Each structure stands twice: as C-alpha cells, then as structure tokens.
C-alpha cells in the first residue's frame, strides 16, 4: 500500500480511536489517564498536520468510500487541498493544546473526574477532523454534530455552575438550529441533483450539478445562516461569549481557535466548491455582515472585564475579518477577477491559521492565569508579569500577533486584506463602490481597536500591581505554570512568529487551494522576489518583508542597548512616586472598566449600558463622601433585539397552545367533532 496523505490521516484517526478505547482502562487512575491520553492525542494531531501539509503540497484530491453509513450512502471521505489546509490548522492547534492539556488537566486531578473530559476532548478533535474530511452531506452533518455534542459536554464540564449549564444549553440550541439550516441547505442541493437515490447526497453529485440561481440562493442563505451560527457571526453570536469561557481553557482554545474555522471551511466549501454560482449581492451581504461582526465584536471585547469573555468576543471579531475576505472573494469572482479573488481567499486562509495560533495561545494563556490564580476577572489580577514571566511573555506575543503588529503573523493577513481592498478597481456597481471604501475604513478601525483591547488585556492583567484583596497574593515565582503548559504555549508563539516572517513560503504552499476554488493564483507573484519578500500582486504595488522588519528591530535594539551600556550608568530602584500622598495603593490604578471608559463613551450608543454612581456621605462632612459605589453593567443589545423576542414569542405561542388542552373532555370531543366535520367538507 502506497503511503498517501489520506492514509496518514487514517493513522491519526485510528490513534484517536485508540486513545478513546484506552480511557476505560485508566478511568480509575486519573493521573495516568492524563499522562497517557493527552500525549497520544498530540501525536495523533501531529500526524494529522503531516497529512494536511502533505495533501496541500501534492494537490491531488484523494477520496475514499467507507463501508458504513446509510445503505446506499456510505460515508465518503475526501482529502483535497482545502480540507488539507483546514486539517493542518486544526491539527496544529490541537497538537499544541494537547501538550498544554497534559499540564492543565493535572489541576483537576483529585478534584473531579477527567474521564469525560478526555473522552469528549478526543471526540471533539476527531469530529473537527472528520468535518473537513467528509464528502457527503450526511457524513458531514454527523461529524458536524459530533463536534457540537462533544464540545457541548466539554462546555458543561463543570456542570455544578448554573451559568455553565446555561451557556452549554444556549450553545447547543444555536448549534443545532444552525445544523438544521445546513441540513436544509444540503437538502436543496441534493434536491437539485434529482435525488433519485441516496447518492444525490454526495458532494460529488453536487459538484457535477449546475444549480439554478433561485435554489442556489436558498441553499447559500441556509448554509450561510447555519455556518454563521457556529462561527458566531453577529447577530448569531450571543452563545459564543457564554460558551467559550465556560469550557475548560484548553477546550476554549480549541473552540475559539479551530472550531469556528470549521464553519469558515463550511462556508467556503459550500460556496466555492459545491454551489459555484456567485451573485454579487451574496458577496456584498457577506462583506457587510463581516464588517458588522468585526467592529461589533471588538467593541464588545473591549468592554469585557472577564478575560475569557473578552477573548471570546475577540474571536467574533476575527471571524468578521475572515468573512470580509470571503465576501471580497465572492465579489471579485462575480466580476471575474480571479487574481483578486485568490488574494482575498489567501487572506482568509492566512487569517484562519493565524487566528488559530494566536487565539489558541491567548486562551491557553488565560487558562494559565486561571490555573495559577483561579480568577477570570482582569480587575482582580495585575502585576503578574513578575510572577509568571513565561506566561506573560507568551501572552504578550499573542497580544501583539492578534493586534496585527509586525513582524508577527496577524499583520500579514490583515495586510493582504487591505491589499485586496485597495486593488479593487472601480467596479461596475455603485453599491460596491460605496462599500469597498467603507469596508476598508471599518477594517482599519477594527484593527486599531484590537490593539486597544489587547493593551487593556495585557496591561491590566500582567502589569501594575496585584488588584486582588490579599496583597501581595503570592510568593514570587511560585505561580508559573508547569512545563507542558509552557511548551504548549511556546509552540504556537513560535508559529506566530514563523507565519509572520515567512509569509511567502506559506502562501506558496497554500496557493493551490484558491487556484482550485476560484481559478486564480498569487504565489508566482507573491514569492517572485524569494522567500524574504511578500509581493502579492506586483512588486511595484506593494511589498513587505517580515523577516527584515524582525531582524532590523532586533539589530537596532541590540545596537542601541550595547551603545548605551558601554558607559555604565547606574540604575536606582526607588519606591513609586506617590504625588505627595501618604501611600499609593493598588486600588488607585486604572482598572479594566476605567481603561475602556473613553472608548465606551465614544461607542456607547451601540451597547446597552447601565452605569450607577452612588455617593454615601457621612453626616459630619457632607462635602466629603466617605464611600463611592460604582456599578457598571454592559449588555449585548442583540439579546434584547433578537433573542428575547424569540424566546418570549415562543412562550407566548406555547401559552396559546396550552389553551388547547384545558382538561375538559367535552372540549376534546368537540375537537374531534369539528375536525371530522371540516375534513368531511374538505373531502366532499
């Protein structure tokens, strides 16, 4: 048997199955369970990465039909570059996270059973792998829901907390409704193939069918709705900031980092591979939704004080950025500009893998904080840079990357996206000519707000003084997390850097995907000046070299440092300047709420904010209040706009239906009576 990417993938899947099978053996020995299963999972993920990279590189789709499934619809698997790319992304992060989990889950040992965690964690990763591999509607949905169920149980892992349960419930409901929409979308597509037999459900049959525009639109809208529900596109996002923080941090990392990407995969697969019709307004719609998602996501993120919630909202923002790219790709394809479409898609892919890396890293960092301090609220932390040097540095790298600062990776994808905006010529559509500048503007605004958000996150959490009640909380250096967790974070941090300084190579690797989907390539130009330079379209138009920026910064910093240290000047450590007060306390620091206050003021109209200030004055000197209460509550407006009405109207209908059954048998008999009379009239 010749070794091929698909066979390597099998290996990975078998290893996962093996891991799950091992769990019962070690259920009694929780520590061993952790030490066995998570390393196995990381190996399995690493194997998947190999398969993914390989399959993208060789660019020959492989497919296989399993002998299980429905009678005439066995499971179809297919590994093409698109799946390969997402397999790589998912595999990479789960590789890192599995290493991290080995250390992280040790914290649970002795406190609660991790058996479920291990099983569902493995199933979750397997589900994500299978989603990108599946090649028929039925198997896709099975994998999709496997992923959803597994993550649902993971969110509910600490099920004694009512808010976790609520979050998990909300998550599952939204996910399931989304899945139903996807199902219907596949129903439309399969229906268009004729659906003479079950084989109409395969993606292959759909690929070979030309869809009439009307049905293509229905299918696209349904699929987009379904996948958006998973991806957390505003206004379908509300579950996300609830569910992602509720899960254990390693799971949050996976959920935010890669599970959302499966939805992106779904959108791309359905739009560019299955439907292959590109009306302009689809692109415009996706673009607009992406913009709204990005800007609202990051604004909500800035408002959060819970670090994991903040990260979750930031994921919403990143999904928005990715959607912007997809929207542009659709627009350009509908105008038959394959090169620009390829550029946008490349940005999409790049941002997908980037976001997987830095969001994974950041969630792992948040997990490390939780692990060490048992706190999620930024306002109770501070000064941790002294106690957790590793975590803080790695979190800083994550923050820089996500803020799209060179030379790290976040910048590359955002840069590509800006290029796509700027290269778009005057298109023959007034709407787009308005939309594209507005889009660029909002994207720029988003990028800037992200930086503000992560300055806040890092600054409040790691810098300054400890804000908690007991000060100083902890002996120095006693908090740093263990080595598996550190390695689990170091690796994605390295990936952030590598992706940031070697973009041309990465783009060359993944260029086949966009070629296959939209028939355009950028790698020949993108890498035209060697691996050092990224020139997406032409050298004259734009170029960037992450490596040189990186080297330059290092060289100059070193140079200046050395120059300034030739002549020794002393450093005097002194107490803080206290402006003449008696004593400066940690409570005088800016905290999370006050940091975001200016931005809250500016964009306040977008939120449902309730601010309460109450002074309690003593009777002796009324002009000097002895206490001041401040209360701030920020709510997602979409709750009130969409979710509450839906739930309230459901209960309203439910009450009305309840009236049907009022206990009187006579009334029930009347129903029968009326039913039969109506039907008789109808039948006559």
């Amino acid at each position: 048997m010749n070794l091929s990417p698909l066979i390597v993938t099998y290996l990975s899947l078998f290893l996962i199955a093996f891991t799950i099978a091992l769990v019962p053996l070690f259920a009694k020995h929780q520590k061993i369970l952790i030490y066995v299963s998570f390393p196995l999972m990381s190996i399995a993920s690493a194997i998947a990465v190999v398969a993914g990279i390989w399959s993208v590189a060789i660019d020959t789709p492989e497919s296989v039909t399993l002998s299980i499934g429905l009678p005439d619809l066995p499971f179809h698997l297919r590994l093409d570059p698109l799946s390969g790319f997402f397999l790589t992304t998912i595999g990479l992060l789960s590789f890192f996270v599995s290493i991290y989990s080995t250390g992280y889950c040790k914290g649970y040992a002795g406190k609660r059973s991790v058996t479920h965690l291990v099983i569902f964690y493995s199933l979750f990763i397997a589900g994500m792998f299978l989603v990108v591999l599946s090649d028929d509607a039925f198997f896709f949905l099975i994998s999709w829901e496997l992923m959803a169920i597994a993550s649902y149980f993971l969110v509910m892992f600490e099920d004694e907390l009512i808010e976790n349960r609520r979050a998990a419930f909300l998550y599952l409901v939204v996910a399931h409704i989304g899945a139903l929409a996807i199902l219907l979308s596949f129903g439309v597509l399969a229906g268009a193939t004729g659906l003479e037999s079950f084989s109409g459900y395969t993606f292959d049959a759909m690929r070979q069918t030309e869809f009439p525009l009307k049905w293509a639109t229905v299918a696209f809208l349904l699929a987009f709705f379904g996948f958006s529900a998973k991806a957390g596109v505003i206004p379908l996002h509300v579950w996300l900031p609830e569910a992602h923080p509720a899960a254990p941090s390693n799971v949050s990392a996976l959920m935010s980092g890669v599970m959302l990407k499966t939805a992106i995969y779904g959108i791309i697969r359905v739009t560019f591979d299955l439907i292959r019709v590109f009306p302009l307004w689809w692109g415009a719609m996706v673009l607009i939704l992406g913009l709204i998602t990005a800007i609202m996501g990051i604004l909500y993120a800035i408002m959060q004080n819970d670090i994991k919630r903040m990260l979750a909202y930031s994921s919403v923002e990143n999904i928005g950025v990715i959607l912007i790219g997809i929207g542009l790709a659709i627009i350009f394809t509908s105008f038959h500009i394959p090169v620009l479409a390829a550029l946008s898609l490349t940005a999409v892919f790049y941002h997908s893998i980037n976001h997987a890396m830095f969001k994974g890293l950041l969630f792992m960092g948040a997990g490390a904080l939780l692990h060490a301090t048992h706190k999620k609220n930024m306002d109770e932390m501070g000064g941790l840079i002294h106690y957790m040097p590793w975590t803080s540095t790695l979190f800083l790298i994550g923050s820089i990357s996500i803020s799209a600062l060179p030379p790290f990776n976040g910048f590359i994808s955002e840069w590509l996206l800006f290029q796509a905006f700027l290269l778009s010529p005057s298109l023959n559509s007034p709407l787009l000519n308005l939309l594209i500048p507005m889009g660029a503007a909002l994207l720029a605004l988003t990028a800037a707000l992200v930086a503000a958000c992560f300055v806040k996150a890092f600054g409040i959490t790691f810098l300054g003084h400890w804000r908690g009640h007991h000060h100083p909380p902890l002996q120095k250096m006693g908090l740093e997390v263990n080595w598996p967790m550190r390695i689990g974070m170091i690796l994605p941090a390295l990936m952030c850097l590598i992706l940031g300084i070697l973009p041309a190579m990465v783009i060359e690797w993944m260029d086949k995907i966009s070629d296959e989907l939209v028939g355009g390539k950028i790698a020949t130009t993108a890498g035209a000046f060697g691996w050092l330079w990224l020139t997406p379209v032409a050298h004259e138009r734009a170029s960037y070299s992450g490596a040189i920026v990186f080297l330059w910064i290092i060289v100059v910093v070193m140079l200046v440092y050395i120059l300034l240290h030739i002549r020794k000047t002393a450093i005097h450590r002194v107490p803080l300047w206290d402006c003449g007060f008696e004593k400066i306390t940690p409570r005088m620091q800016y905290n999370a709420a006050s940091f975001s206050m200016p931005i809250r003021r500016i964009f306040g109209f977008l939120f449902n904010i309730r601010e309460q200030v109450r002074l309690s004055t003593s009777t002796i000197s009324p002009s000097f209040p002895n206490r001041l209460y401040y209360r701030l509550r920020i709510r997602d407006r979409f709750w009130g706009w969409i979710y509450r009405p839906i739930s309230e109207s459901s209960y309203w209908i439910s009450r009305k239906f309840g009236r049907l059954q009022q206990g009187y048998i006579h009334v029930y008999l009347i129903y029968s009576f009326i039913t039969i009379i109506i039907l008789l009239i109808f039948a006559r």
Partner: protein
Amino acid sequence: MIELYPFIIEAIQIVIVLLFAPLFVGWVRMLKCWFQGRTSAGLFQPYRGILKLFHKDVILAENASWLFRFTPYLVFGVTVLAGGIIPIISLTLPFATVADVIAIVALFAIVRFFTALAGMDIGTAFGGMGSSREMMIGSLAEPAMLMAIFTVSLISQTTSLSNMADVVIHKEFILRPSMAFALLAFVLISLAETGRIPVDNPATHLELTMIHEAMILEYSGRHLALIEWAGMIKLFLFTTIGIASFFPWGISTSVNLINISAGIIFLILKMGFLGIGLILIETGLAKMRIFRVPEFLGSAFLLSTLGMLSYFILE
C-alpha cells in the same frame, strides 16, 4: 552583485532622520517662542536635552518589569526603521520595499502599543490614564490615517510610499477632490498622532491634560532620552510622510548625488515651512477637552473616508 550605492543613500537618510528630527523640534519650539513673544532656547536645545538625559542615571520604580525597560529600545528601533523606509531624500531606497505604507502605520502602532503598556507597568493612576487615552486616540487616528493614505494609494495604485511618491511626481498634476480631503484629514491626524495641540500638549505636565507625557512619566535617564528622541523622530516622520504623499516634488528619483543633495535642500525648505504651518495651527487653537478629541478625530476619519469615497464616485 548588489549595488552598494543605494545602501549608502539609505545610511545617509537614516542619519538625516536621526539628526534632523531634534532640529525640526528645535525649529518648531523656536518659532513658537517667537510667535508668543518669548526668547527661545535656540535651535539646538533638543540635542542638549537628549545628551543630558543620556548622561544621567536611571531611576526606576521598584516594580518596573523588563517590559518597562525594554520599551524605550523597541520604540526607538521601530521608529528608526520607519525612518529608513519613508522616502525622505530619495525614492530609490533599498529598504523601501521592506514595508509599505500600511506596514509603516503598523510600525507606529507598535510604538503606541508598547508605550501604552509601559505606561501601565508601574501601576500609577497617571500611567493607566495616559495609556487609556492614548489607545482611544490611537484607535481613531490610526484608521483615519490609513484611510487618508489609502486615498493617495488608490490614485497611484500602489501602497509603497516610494512608488506613491514616484507616481505623484511623474503624473500630470490634477486637482483631485479626494486628495484634498485626504490632505485635510492627514493634517488633523498628524496633530493627534504626534501629540500636538489641540489634542495633546507636549509642553506641559498638567496632570489631567496629559496623554503622551502621562505614559512616560516614570521614565528617566537614557530611557527617557530614547523615548523623547523617538518622539521627535516620529514628528519628523509624520511630516515626511505627508510630504511624500502629497508634495513629493523635489525628492530625488535617482541615485544621482546632485539629486540627493537637491533632495536634502528641498527637504529642509519644506520642513521649515511646515514648521511654520504647525506653529500657526498650534497657536491658533487651544487644547481640547479630552472628550472633544473623539469628535476631532471622528471628523478626520470622516474626511478621509469621504476622500476615498470621492475617489470611487467622482474620479
């Protein structure tokens, strides 16, 4: 064989950036004194200030972390890098391809990011306040800045500053409404980004009005020197970005030594005039309340977006 000549020009430009930046600040301060009827400290006072700071010992707060000490170096390094990319005296810089204008904006974002973090590191109320305000201003100014430059780059169909300048130099001069909008926006943003009146006042340490100064309040000695110097370079660079995007005429388009020298002279002249313009604005306006700043920046953002829109609609 890589040509050595452009690298020499690159080196010259970096030296010019390093040396001219304090000079420009000195010039502005001098002008300001004259306008306000005071005696100025002289054109070279900024050099003296920086040198003095370099010779002083560093006083560091007890709880300052490595980040606090690392920031000045990084800020300085990044700023100088930006100085090597922007076409100031010549368009044929080897470094010009390292980063385009988006990357330059991102480089300034790095500076802001780390300065803000450093401001929060010590844990004083001032530092946090400065950082918070700085990020607020930055989050509005940065997109506006990008938009303003995007407008120019849409016209020239490139985002590389050198090529943008090249196109503007060689194309026939047309009065474009989009350019006018962009220029106006750019001026507003530059004032905000470089911490000038009416957004920030670089000359005072009045507690509640500080933004940039609040963040670097705890710095001393060489750290402060680096940050101050980097700040001066930043002012200088913003001016040169403006020149390169809107008035590039005079910048050398070849590696010819005469052209380069002409470029330097043009630069000095332009800077001189821009300094006067800056002072006119600064003395004509008063410092705004902090929550008026969003309106100010918002209008800049609006203007720059209008510029881009008018490119798509009118041109």
